[in-house]
C-alpha cells in the first residue's frame, strides 16, 4: 500500500465530528532519504556514495541583516538562517511539505494540530530540543513586543500548548490552509532555543550547520553540526559564503573557481556562463517570482476598468518572456506555479490576448480616442531585467496609443512609494515567492497596506481570498485560487507579465546532490558533497 501523501486531509471539509483524521508522516530514515535523494531527482545515471568532508564555497551577493528568524525582516538573511535553523516541517525538492523536527501530526478538528516531535535532537549549544522550545518560539512570534513580521502570518494561532516534552498542540481560531506552509518555510517556521539571547549575532539552531564566523562583506562561515539528526548528513565539513556585490565579479569568481556555486539574476548571463565550460551545471529553479505592473486605481484614469483592460490587452506577455528571459520562465498571473493553484502559464486568462486594436477601441470608449498618457512608470533601477522589460512594455503600449515615461529609481524610495500608495500611476516591483498563496494574495486585499495603496476595494475579491485561505483540501483550494486569479485578470487590478525563478543557480559539477528549490533558500546544501 502506498504511504499516505502529506498532508492527507479528507475531501469533505465539514467532517470535523468524524473520528480524528490522522496524517502520518513518513519517518525519514536513511533508506527513504536515499529514495528521495536529489541525485535521483536530477536524474543522474547512478547514485554515487557521498564522500564526507571538504568546504563548499558559495558566492553570495547580499549580506544577512540579522540572524534571529523571529525578528528578521531582510530577505537576504534567509540563505544563512535556513542552514542554521530547522522547523517542524520543511519543503521537499518538489515543493511538497514533509516532516522535519515533527514526525507526525494529528488534527482532532480543523482548528487543532497536535505535533509529535523527534526525540534526541540537540541545538548547537548542546541543549535538548523539546516542545518547550516550540512554545517559546511561537510565544515570541505572537508577542507584539518582539516586533516580529511573522505575527501576521500566524494570526490564526490562538495558543501553543506543551502536552509533554515531545508533543505540542497548536490551537487556531480559524481554519487556515497557510498554517502548514508557513511552518514548512524557512525562516517562518524556524524553531529557536528557549533561554538563549542575542540570536541576531550569535544564532543557535537545530540545523545541519553551526554558525562559525561572520565578517561583513567578506565572508560568512558555518561548520557541520556533529549531532545533526539526519543520519550521515551533512556531508560537508564547512560551508563558506563569500560576498561579491557585483554580478560580473560573481561570474568571474565562479569561472576562476574561487567559489564552487552561486546564483545569478539574469538567465541569459547564466546560460552564457554555463556554456563556457561543460563542467558547469546550471539548473533553473522552479518559477517562484512574478513581474507585475502595479496600478494606482485611486484616481483617474486607472480607476476606469476600460483603461486597465486596455493596458492588459496592449501587453504582449509572450514577447516580453522571449526577449527578456530567453524563454526561461512562463507567462505570469498573480500566483506563481510553485504554489497551490498557481498559474502555469498555459490556458487563457481574461484580457491576456495581445490585441492593440481592441485596446484602442476600449480607450476610445473610455473617452480617449486619441490615446492616453499615463505619465510616469516607476521601475527598480538596480534590476536590469525589470528595466529591460519596462522598455519593451513602453513600446508595446505605445502601439496601442498608451504613452508612459520610464522612471528608473533607487530601491528604497520605490518601496516606500509602493507600500504607502504614493506612486502616481504605474510602478513595477517583482514579487518574490511567499510560503503560501495567501501571502501573495494579501498584497491585493483591501485591508493590507499595499492593497490600500493601490486602491483595492472589491468586497467580492476579499471574500474569495478569505475563503481560499480557509480551504484545507488542496484540490478545492487550487480551484479557488485559480478563480481568484481569473477575477484579478478580468478586473485588470494588476498587470502580471511573466513568472521566473528568483535565481538561476549554477555550480561546478564536482558539487554533487545539490538541488535548487523554489523556496528561495539553499536547503539542499545539507545533502551536497564534493567529489574532488
Amino acid at each position, binding site marked *: 500500500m502506498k504511504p499516505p501523501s502529506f498532508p492527507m486531509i479528507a475531501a469533505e471539509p465539514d467532517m470535523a465530528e468524524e473520528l480524528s483524521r490522522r496524517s502520518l508522516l513518513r519517518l525519514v530514515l536513511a533508506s527513504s532519504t536515499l529514495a528521495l535523494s536529489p541525485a535521483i531527482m536530477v536524474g543522474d545515471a547512478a547514485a554515487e556514495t557521498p564522500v564526507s568532508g571538504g568546504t563548499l564555497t558559495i558566492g553570495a551577493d547580499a549580506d544577512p541583516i540579522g540572524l534571529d528568524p523571529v525578528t528578521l525582516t531582510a*530577505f537576504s538573511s534567509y540563505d544563512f538562517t535556513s542552514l542554521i535553523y530547522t522547523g517542524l516541517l520543511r519543503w521537499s525538492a518538489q515543493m511538497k511539505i514533509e516532516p522535519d523536527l515533527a514526525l507526525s501530526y494529528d488534527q482532532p478538528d480543523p482548528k487543532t494540530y497536535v505535533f509529535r516531535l523527534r526525540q534526541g535532537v540537540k541545538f548547537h549549544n548542546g541543549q535538548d530540543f523539546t516542545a518547550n522550545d516550540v512554545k517559546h518560539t511561537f510565544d515570541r512570534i505572537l508577542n507584539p513586543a518582539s516586533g516580529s513580521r511573522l505575527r*501576521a502570518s500566524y494570526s490564526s494561532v490562538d495558543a501553543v500548548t506543551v502536552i509533554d516534552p515531545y508533543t505540542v498542540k497548536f490551537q487556531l481560531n480559524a481554519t487556515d490552509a497557510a498554517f502548514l506552509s508557513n511552518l514548512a518555510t524557512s525562516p517562518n517556521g524556524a524553531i529557536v532555543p528557549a533561554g538563549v539571547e542575542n540570536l*541576531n549575532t550569535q544564532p543557535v539552531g537545530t540545523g545541519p550547520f553551526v554558525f562559525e564566523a561572520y565578517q561583513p*562583506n*567578506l565572508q560568512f562561515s558555518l561548520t557541520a553540526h556533529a549531532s545533526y539528526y539526519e543520519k550521515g548528513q551533512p556531508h560537508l565539513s564547512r560551508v563558506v559564503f563569500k560576498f561579491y556585490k557585483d554580478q560580473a565579479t560573481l*561570474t*568571474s569568481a565562479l569561472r576562476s*573557481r574561487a567559489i564552487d556555486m552561486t546564483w545569478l539574476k539574469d538567465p541569459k548571463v547564466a546560460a552564457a556562463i554555463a556554456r563556457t565550460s561543460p563542467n558547469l551545471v546550471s539548473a533553473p529553479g522552479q518559477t517562484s517570482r512574478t513581474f507585475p505592473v502595479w496600478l494606482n486605481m485611486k484616481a483617474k484614469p486607472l480607476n476606469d476598468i476600460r483603461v486597465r483592460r486596455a493596458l492588459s490587452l496592449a501587453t504582449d506577455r509572450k514577447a516580453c518572456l522571449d526577449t527578456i528571459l530567453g524563454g526561461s520562465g512562463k507567462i505570469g498571473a498573480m500566483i506563481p506555479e510553485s504554489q497551490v493553484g498557481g498559474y502555469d502559464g498555459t490556458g487563457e486568462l481574461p484580457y491576456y490576448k495581445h490585441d492593440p486594436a481592441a485596446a484602442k477601441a476600449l480607450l476610445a470608449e473610455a473617452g480617449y480616442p486619441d490615446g492616453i498618457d499615463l505619465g510616469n512608470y516607476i521601475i527598480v533601477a538596480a534590476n536590469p531585467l525589470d528595466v529591460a522589460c519596462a522598455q519593451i512594455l513602453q513600446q508595446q503600449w505605445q502601439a496601442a496609443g498608451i504613452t508612459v515615461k520610464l522612471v528608473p529609481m533607487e530601491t528604497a524610495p520605490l*518601496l*516606500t512609494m509602493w507600500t504607502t500608495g504614493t506612486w502616481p500611476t504605474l510602478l513595477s516591483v517583482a514579487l518574490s515567492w511567499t510560503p503560501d498563496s495567501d501571502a501573495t494574495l494579501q498584497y491585493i486585499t483591501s485591508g493590507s497596506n499595499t492593497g490600500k495603496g493601490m486602491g483595492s476595494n472589491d468586497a467580492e475579491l476579499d471574500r474569495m481570498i478569505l475563503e481560499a485561505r480557509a480551504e484545507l483540501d488542496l484540490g478545492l483550494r487550487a480551484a479557488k485560487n485559480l478563480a481568484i486569479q481569473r477575477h484579478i485578470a478580468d478586473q485588470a487590478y494588476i498587470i502580471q507579465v511573466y513568472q521566473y525563478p528568483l535565481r538561476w543557480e549554477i555550480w561546478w559539477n564536482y558539487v554533487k546532490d545539490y538541488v535548487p528549490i523554489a523556496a528561495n533558500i539553499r536547503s539542499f546544501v545539507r545533502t551536497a558533497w564534493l567529489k574532488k
Partner: protein
Amino acid sequence: MKRFVLGRLAWMLAILLAVSFIAFAMMRALPGDFAIAAAGSQSVAPEVLAAIRQDLGLDRSLLAQYWAWLGHAILGDLGTSFVTRQPVRPELFDRLAVTFQLTLVAAIISMVMGVATGLAAARMRGTVDWIVRLYNGVMLAVPNYVVATLIVLLFGLYFPQVSIFGYTPFLEDPLANIGSLLLPALALALAVSVTISENTRAAVLEVANQDFVMVARAKGLPPGRILRDYLVRNAMTPVITATGLKIAALLGGSILVETIFAIPGMGQYLFDSINSRDYPVIQAIVLTASAIVVVVNTMIDIAYARVDARVKL
C-alpha cells in the same frame, strides 16, 4: 603664530561639525529608510516597520537624533551598525587600513607609470610622444569603474585560472594580499597616472628650455646626467604637488573599485551602507573621511606658514 594655529584648529572643528550635520540631514532627506530597505519587496506590516524604527531611535526628531549622535561621537563612540548590530568603530578602522593599503599601492603604480610615460614623451619627440598623448587623452576620459569592470570581465573570461577576486588580509598572507590588490589598484591608478604623465611631460619640457639646462648642455654634460640632475629634480616639484592633490581622487575612486572587486575597504562599506540606509555607518565614514582631508589640509597650511614668509601671520 600660536594664534594662527589655534584659529586654524577652530576652523577645522567648525568644518567637521558642518560636514557631519549636512551628511546627516542629506541622508535623512533621501526617501526610504533602513526598515524599508531591509524588508525589500516583502509585505511587512507597518507596525513591524514602526517597531524597528523605534528600536533604532529613528522615530525621534532629526535634531534629537543628531544631538545624540554628536554626543557619542565626541567621546569616540561611533554607534552601532543597523545591519550587523556590531559597533562601527573597529569595523571602520579595519576597512580604513584596507583602503589606505589599496590607495598606497595605486599611488605607487600611478607614480611609476605616470613619470615613466611622461619622461618618455618629453624626451623622445615624434611617435612616442604622440602615442603617449593619445593614450593619456583616451584614459583620462574613461572612468575608473569602467576600467575596473573591463579588467574583471577580461580576467574572468580569458584568464579564469588567475584568481583575482576577493581579498586576502595582509597578516594572513602578505604576498597574496599584495596580489589581491594589484588589479584593483591598477584600475584605480590608470586615470591618475595619465594626469601625472601629462604633468611630468609639461614640467620637463618647461625646465628643458630654461637657461641653466642650456648652460649644462653647452658645457657638454652627458644627456643622462642632465636628465637626472637637472630635469627630473626640478620638474618633480609640481608633479609631486599634483600627485598629492590626486590622492583625494584615489580615495573617492576607491568606492566603486572596491565594490566591483569585492575589496572590503571603506569605499565598499560606504556603498553598502548607503544602499541599506545604515545611518550610523554612513555618519562614521563621512566624519572620518572629512577629518582626514581637513586635518591634512590644516597641516599643509600650517607647514606653509612656517616655511613661507609671505604667508601673513
